[in-house]
């Protein structure tokens, strides 16, 4: 091997992509600072980001594992809707936040388990399997709630409410701490735990993983359960933040969450990706939406700009991984 190969490895490394994605975020914020200085030079908008972005970020963390394993989950926002319903329903009927919380996480785990079984054991491609369960859980939430929204004003005084979505020092939204904490833990699990290594090998070469003794089916089920339980956790935070649950709370998050994972550099082909990239990706998406409105350009532009950023990110990633080969 020689200097030429070292150069290629520099461009092909995850490190390069990580720097690139941070740079993109800095540039975007820089543009908004110029375009909308009043909003973007004030710390309040960043606190607003920390309040709104964690919901999609937490789901994006689970989705990162799914995509690294070479699969896709389209159902997590419906799991969010369903487990959010369970949370608010149990809270309204028992008055216990903890019970409601546990019930909601359990619902998320069960929904993820079902996805996992359909994909790993019944061998239905995940795009179809989770498209089906997406309709199912969203539909079940609508049926059970009769389409009505549930208001949980009584949750405000509870201790758990403050833990989940309180403002630390009166300023920093607690959900951001949860999201960052989960990101750190899941990053460690992805890179340093046997589970994370199995996920990467499954996405890289499933037969290899199997031949080297990775329990592929079991790991796939666990990955979908992780995605489900994180969607449930996000639903609890969202219901608390809004003090309301409604059946269509979830679906709006689907595409921006998937986009966040891809902007973050996770490969659509599986086998590689970083949690750090996903965190930055979620912030890029969340900031663009807020920034465009604050810049006075008009909300009509949001989707167009998100689309451009996503396309650029995918182009860069494809280019970088080709160079890396």
């Amino acid at each position, binding site marked *: *091997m020689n200097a030429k*190969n070292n150069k290629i490895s520099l461009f092909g490394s995850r490190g390069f992509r990580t720097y690139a994605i941070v740079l993109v975020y800095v540039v975007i914020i820089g543009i908004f600072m110029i375009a909308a200085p009043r909003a973007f030079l004030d710390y309040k908008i960043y606190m607003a980001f920390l309040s709104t972005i964690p919901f999609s970020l937490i789901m994006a963390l689970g989705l990162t594992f799914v995509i690294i394993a070479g699969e896709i989950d389209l159902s997590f926002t419906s799991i969010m809707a369903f487990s959010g319903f369970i949370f608010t329903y149990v809270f309204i009927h028992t008055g216990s936040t903890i019970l409601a919380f546990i019930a909601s996480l359990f619902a998320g785990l069960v929904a993820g388990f079902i996805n996992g079984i359909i994909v790993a054991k019944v061998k239905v491609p995940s795009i179809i399997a989770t498209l089906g369960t997406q309709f199912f859980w969203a539909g079940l939430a609508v049926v059970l709630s009769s389409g009505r929204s549930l208001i949980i004003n009584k949750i405000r005084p509870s201790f758990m409410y403050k833990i989940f979505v309180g403002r630390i020092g009166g300023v920093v939204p607690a959900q951001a701490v949860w999201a960052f904490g989960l990101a750190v833990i899941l990053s460690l699990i992805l890179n340093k735990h*046997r589970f994370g290594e199995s996920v*990467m*090998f499954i996405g890289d070469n499933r*037969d290899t993983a199997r*031949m080297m*003794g990775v329990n592929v089916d079991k790991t796939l089920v666990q990955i979908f359960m992780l995605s489900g339980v994180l969607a449930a956790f996000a639903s609890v935070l969202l219901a608390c933040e809004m003090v309301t649950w409604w059946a269509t709370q979830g679906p709006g998050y689907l595409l921006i969450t998937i986009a966040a994972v891809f902007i973050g550099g996770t490969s659509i082909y599986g086998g*590689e990706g970083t949690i750090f990239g996903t965190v930055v990706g979620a912030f890029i998406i969340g900031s663009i939406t807020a920034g465009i409105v604050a810049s006075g350009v008009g909300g009509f532009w949001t989707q167009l700009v998100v689309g451009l950023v996503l396309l650029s990110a995918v182009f860069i990633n494809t280019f970088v991984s080709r160079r890396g080969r």
Partner: protein
Amino acid sequence: MNDYKNLVEMKNIHKYFGKVVALKGVNFQVGNNEIVGLIGDNGAGKSTLIKILSGVFPPTSGEIYIRGKKISNSGYSVRKAHQLEIETVYQEKALGEKQSLWRNIFIGRQISNFFGFIDIKKEKEETERIMKELIGFRGGGVSANSRVGKLSGGERQGIAIGRAMYFNANLIILDEPTAALSAKEVTKVLNFIQKIKESGRSCIYITHHISDTYSVSDRFVFIDRGEIIGEYKKSEISMEELTEKLLMVSAGNSGKEITDECKEQ
């Protein structure tokens, strides 16, 4: 002394993939400190037999004895095979292309703590040691951190073989290990098989290259369309005769696919 005759004994093994018959009543043994050359045409059932022995999938029926002990077909797995010191180097070069070398060496058998977190530093150190001492990689820009996708075919085979050596397998199965290699690299692999023999271990060496297998094997087993059609000790057969047999088998197969066989049944 061992209280078993053969290290591995597979009796009356059948394997069906749906309606396709891959193995039909195969009896196959590997002795202690024996190098067995498993020879057959493409699609003869060599890899299927090996994958059953390696725990990748179970046989449809039949019995497997390892060191004289019967193995439960349903409870057998790759992990179990590793525990029984059976290690396989696959023809597909079973490595994760996008992953680093050290992850590829230890996947499935990580050095980890009680909570399942990997001792990355230790794994990297061991990988460097394997590369230097077992495979003979020196410098050359390849490190424990290199991604497998950047290595040459020979280097990849080296990693897979190094992995088998490191985990102290007693039976090492090499599935067409020289298929993608240059002549020089083939010699390395043959030297490695010699080392297996010298260290008192056993090996199943699968190939179509008669000249490679003849020099290192103690016994040759012919497999054709899912059946064992001949077994010869090295003293019983010359390389020319062995080559002739393989050619005859190949000629007999021409134009006849394994699926035709199934339709007849």
